[in-house]
């Protein structure tokens, strides 16, 4: 749609850029400056030995949608925090509309006209939309007038939003709109979005892109951080690729292929998953029968009559947007939330009443979505974390722990799954998200489970590691293990699953073979029966 008229000039850092095609209605920048909206020169930030940003230079023209592409841990978020004033650079200059500025703190950034939509929302659940916005705008405010402005701005940009609703009743997509509207009310000239689509349905992503294109046409510059190549190709004018804290390339995404972008981003070819057929006997290993559970807390989702079955040798994927009962379902299956005995059946044995330890004894492995604090104890070493679930592999005798065995097990996981760390004595929190995930997946797999539950297998994991993890799961299933994967990333489910089911508002639609589903249809189901507000 709007992509056709998006021919804003690209990578012309030193030259002035022609003014945006349409009159600038937002932003006080009615006088278009001759310089770049934002120019960074040699930004460097060190955390002890780690160089998060190494002499990064970047320029963003007015009305440009500029992608910052890089793996997790490449230094994208640090760079954005520097621009937004949340972190101070050790060296380097920042020019704003051609003028050198010192962004001491986010408040200064906001006053300059920099808005940031965070990956994790910072909203108060018990307050209304307009109250949340008023809190950030600060100063004296008139809620009624502000609500009117919120309504106006949200309709103007197609971000339908009821200012008087409480945040806890909003979907994740709507919460993101609150964040965006909150930024727009401050008349930004530059909008930074950090992985904004990780929680959206495909339809919501399209709506978001329309809004961003409209903003760009009005002269707002957009810095778009992501590692999703197809999004960047469809949305962004220019891309700056960062790897290990350095700029490794500039590109015009539309002129590149996903493979060439991936190469710039990870420094090598993106591995493709190989899906072999399963040759063993198919028999149901995990069955869920009419599982209903009331919501465990006021903001939770109740599960309604869920039935499914996972066969040996297959991966069943559960698609859906977080907050539709995924946590509750996984907790009920893992045993963290007890349920009716017959509701969960493992190899013909009713296990709904058993606790997680007893279920694990019977061969049920689980990789939770929260790695630190749930899948691993942050301050403990990897060897001690191996003990967390693998203790049943002979590591405890007469109540005493055999530290040697635990360390050996941890070393084995580290070696087999390529966990990058200083060794089995490294604390779990010292590992990057992806490496800790490899460790946890490895720990569960090394215990030869019959059924493996995996929640968000590659959340926050860099592209290379994600591909490795997906392949690992496929290979494990082909050994006859039944795997249930819950993921928000549809492409991931399409890549690894044999069948896909959609969970929306605590109800599970019947699984379909991958060949029979398409993303469009699943996206609609993900939005739920009452479909996300249009």
């Amino acid at each position, binding site marked *: 749609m709007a992509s056709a008229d998006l021919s804003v000039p690209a990578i012309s850092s030193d030259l002035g850029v022609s003014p945006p095609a349409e009159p600038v209605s937002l932003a006080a920048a009615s006088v278009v400056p001759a310089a770049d909206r934002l120019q960074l020169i040699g930004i460097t930030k060190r955390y002890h030995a780690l160089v998060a940003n190494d002499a990064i230079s970047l320029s963003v023209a007015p009305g440009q949608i500029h992608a910052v592409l890089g793996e997790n841990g490449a230094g994208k978020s640090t760079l954005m925090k520097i621009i937004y004033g949340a972190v101070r650079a050790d060296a380097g200059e920042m020019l704003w509309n051609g003028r050198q500025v010192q962004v001491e703190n986010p408040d200064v950034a906001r006053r300059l006209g920099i808005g940031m939509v965070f990956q994790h929302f910072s909203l108060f659940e018990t307050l209304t939309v307009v109250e949340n916005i008023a809190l950030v705008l600060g100063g004296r405010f008139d809620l009624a007038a502000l609500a009117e402005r919120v309504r106006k701005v949200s309709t103007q940009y197609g971000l339908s939003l009821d200012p008087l609703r409480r945040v806890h009743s909003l979907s994740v997509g709507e919460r993101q709109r609150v964040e965006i509207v909150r930024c727009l009310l401050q008349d930004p000239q530059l909008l930074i979005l950090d992985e904004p689509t990780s929680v959206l349905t495909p339809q919501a992503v399209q709506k978001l892109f329309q809004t961003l294109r409209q903003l760009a046409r009005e002269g707002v510059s957009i810095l778009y951080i992501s590692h999703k190549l197809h999004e960047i190709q469809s949305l962004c004018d220019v891309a700056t690729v960062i790897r290990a804290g350095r700029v490794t390339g500039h590109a015009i995404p539309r002129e590149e292929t996903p493979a060439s972008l991936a190469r710039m981003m990870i420094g090598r070819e993106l591995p493709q998953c190989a899906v072999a057929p399963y040759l063993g006997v198919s028999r149901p290993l995990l069955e869920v029968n009419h599982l209903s559970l009331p919501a465990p807390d006021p903001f939770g989702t109740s599960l309604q009559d869920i039935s499914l079955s996972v066969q040996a040798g297959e991966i069943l994927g559960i698609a859906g947007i977080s907050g539709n009962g995924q946590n509750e379902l996984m907790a009920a299956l893992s045993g963290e939330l007890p349920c009716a005995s017959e509701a969960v059946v493992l190899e013909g044995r009713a296990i709904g009443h058993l606790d*997680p330890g007893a279920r694990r004894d019977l061969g049920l492995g689980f990789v939770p979505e929260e790695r630190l*604090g749930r899948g691993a*104890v942050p301050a403990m070493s990897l060897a001690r974390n191996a003990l967390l679930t693998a203790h049943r592999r002979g590591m405890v005798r007469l109540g005493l722990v055999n530290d040697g065995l635990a360390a050996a097990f941890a070393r084995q996981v580290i070696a087999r799954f390529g966990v990058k760390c200083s060794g089995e004595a490294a604390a779990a929190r010292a590992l990057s998200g992806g490496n800790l995930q490899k460790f946890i997946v490895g720990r569960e797999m090394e215990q030869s489970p019959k059924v493996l539950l995996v929640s968000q297998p590659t959340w926050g994991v860099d592209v290379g590691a994600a591909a490795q993890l997906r392949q690992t799961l496929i290979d494990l299933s082909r050994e006859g293990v039944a795997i249930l994967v819950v993921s928000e990333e549809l492409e991931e489910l399409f890549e690894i699953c044999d069948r896909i089911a959609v969970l929306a508002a605590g109800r599970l639609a019947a699984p379909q073979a991958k060949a029979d589903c398409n993303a469009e249809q699943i996206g609609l189901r993900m939005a739920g029966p009452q479909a996300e507000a249009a």
Partner: protein
Amino acid sequence: MHLLEPRAEPSRTLQWAAPPLAILLMLLAGSLLFLVLGRNPVEAFRVFFIQPLESGYGWSELLLKAGPLILIAEGLAIGFRARIYNIGAEGQLIFGAICAGGVAIYAQGHEGHWTLPAMVLAGALGGLFWGAIPALLKTHFNAEETLTTLMLTYVANFLLSWLVHIPWRDPQGMNFPQSVMFSDAELFTPLFEGSRLNTSIGLAVVAVVVFQVLVRRSFLAYRLEVGGQAPTAARYAGFSQRATIWVSLCVSGMMAGLAGVGEVAGPIGQLNLNLSPGYGYAAIIVAYLGRLHPLGIVLSGLLMALLYLGGEAAQMTLQLPAAITGLFQGMLLFFLLGTDAFIDNRLRLPRRNA
């Protein structure tokens, strides 16, 4: 203004440096206090910290007081690691002492070799029972253990008071609220002629060894620690939170009960209203000062015992009020909490900007 900002990583150095630093600050503040009171700080320091250790008797008194502190603190530390905050060890000590004392009183006239072991057992079970009550309240009614343990201390105190005023009062005791004196078979044997230090110190020695093995090697302690550091991970692993609560409170209660036996069957030799000079509370400081580490607690227990002795010496030699002991304990805790804040945080220095 926020003066503190979180560190990226907790400081390992400060984790170990905080206790010595807190002790140093306590000494500095103590010196100032002595100055204000018109005493020579050097002299006061000598009276407080050196004089008690100038004789063999002084050392024996030090160990006598360190014994119960270490016993209680070892038990408390197990719970504190699991984030179960038993602050009623004083009550568990008293109830353990009541149980042991009861055995002693009813055994009078037919006591034998069995009496002292029976008292130890009764005291341990009594303390355990007094710790089990808050565990029951927490697991069934979600009652905060900090409140219930503390309140049960008052209950234990009143119970003791009633017992020594009415049913167990010594008929020949000139109406003083105290029981009969226990016989030799009901007391721990003194280790040296003329000292009050007795064989009950062996309990503390054994406890240190047992707890060292327990904390370093046992799967039980691992589960408790996971429960304390990351409750969600404990649930994920299938470690029972209820078991954590029961074990923490029962073990710490039992250790406090043992300390109570050591007192009534040791230097006190009867039940009366002054069973403990606040050992149950001081042991909380001991546990944290010793970094909840079984061997660290030995050092901090000795220091706390020295504070007790120094406080007594200061009363006698410097004519300072009895509150001086509590004052030093308080300062120590205050400075420890203060320095501990810097393990996870650092000072944000005001930037001078143009």
